[in-house]
């Protein structure tokens, strides 16, 4: 499952991390989280793995394990210091992404989640190209409600169509804020052009769900903890869990379809 957005800062990495945690809650499933944001890798911090390094063995690079059934790989683990800037042009980034796919000893994996940087460039073309020999179930596209985000996200949807990448659906983050004190709802990022809902209708893609703003989400990310575990009662947690379930169902459907073909 690829997690994409045309826009930066909408919650791709947050969502990727929570999707990974959500899927790995089933201890019978093996989950892998691959962070191909070479310039701004957020996954190590969000998974509480800052400072971890990658080990090499005879069978390749070893992912860093959060849980027994949840392994992570990111350029973040290859840096000597977390503030080191990776100032690479496209071809070098592509080379590392290829290595991540070829040389990491993931083992048997039920779900590989790929977190991407914003845009429609080298990283995105490369991941689709390199994974074309195997199959990609689809892309989850993340946005926020305002038009400045949606205009970039529409481009991403067109990118998916161009490279024939199935779209599992769209997630709208930062969708409203409910004050914990007065319970009033505010639109911090007003959907001036109808938000993800209208865009999905217009472009005939599935809206997987809307997730409200919750300051605890940012805090959990900063502390490397799973927001779903830290705030199980939050409306945002409920939204995320519903969305994760829909993604699981989508993937299971594809499994069944493939079995039929075989």
């Amino acid at each position: 499952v690829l997690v994409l957005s045309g826009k930066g800062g909408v919650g791709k990495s947050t969502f990727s991390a929570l999707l990974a945690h959500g899927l790995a809650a089933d201890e019978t499933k093996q989950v892998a989280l691959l962070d191909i944001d070479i310039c701004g890798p957020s996954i190590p911090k969000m998974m509480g793995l800052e400072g971890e390094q990658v080990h090499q063995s005879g069978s390749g690079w070893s992912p860093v394990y959060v849980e027994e059934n949840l392994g992570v790989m990111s350029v973040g683990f290859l840096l000597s210091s977390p503030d080191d800037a990776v100032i690479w042009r496209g071809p070098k980034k592509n080379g590392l992404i290829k290595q991540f796919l070829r040389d990491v000893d993931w083992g048997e994996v039920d779900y590989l989640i790929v977190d991407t940087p914003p845009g429609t460039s080298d990283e995105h073309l490369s991941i689709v190209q390199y994974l074309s020999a195997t199959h990609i179930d689809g892309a989850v596209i993340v946005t926020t409600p305002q038009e400045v985000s949606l205009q970039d996200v529409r481009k991403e949807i067109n990118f998916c169509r161009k490279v024939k990448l199935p779209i599992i659906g769209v997630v709208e983050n930062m969708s409203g804020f409910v004050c914990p004190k007065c319970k009033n709802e505010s639109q911090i990022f007003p959907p001036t052009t109808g938000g993800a809902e209208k865009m999905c209708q217009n472009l005939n893609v599935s809206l997987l769900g809307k997730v409200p703003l919750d300051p605890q989400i940012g805090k959990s990310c900063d502390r490397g903890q799973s927001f779903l575990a830290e705030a199980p009662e939050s409306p945002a947690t409920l939204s995320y869990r519903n969305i994760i379930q829909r993604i699981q169902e989508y993937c299971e459907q594809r499994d069944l379809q493939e079995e039929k073909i075989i």
Partner: protein
Amino acid sequence: AERTNLAGVRHILLVLSGKGGVGKSTLSTELALALRDAGKRVGILDVDLCGPSIPRMLRVQDSAVHQCDTGWVPVFVGQDKAIALMSIGFLLERPDDAVVWRGPKKNALIKQFVTDVAWGDLDFLIVDTPPGTSDEHISTVEALRPHQLLGAILVTTPQ
């Protein structure tokens, strides 16, 4: 020697962040508007090729650009035309078209944007960038190197 297109630009500012979605384009726009209100001539160069936000923020997303003998004519914003803007947004056939380019192609266009836009005389040129530290950033700084860069403004959010 031929007068370069940047010869009439007094100050060049880069707006950067490692992170996406923190408000670079928003700040670039507001800074341009504030400088214009202070009586300055301002240009904005939007080098975010995959996600160009500035045209919409200045309500000129439906404008087109054309060429003159010294290069591209930027889009002039507002009745007073005190803000000049160049963005890849103006070169797209349809606004939802994805610019799915690899680095080398992006680099070529950025070089053109830096050297081939007929800015004329400006007090400030604000360069809005995409998130990251990659092709766009390297190419922009390289292409601007012969000129005097005032500096970079870094934008972030608290987390």
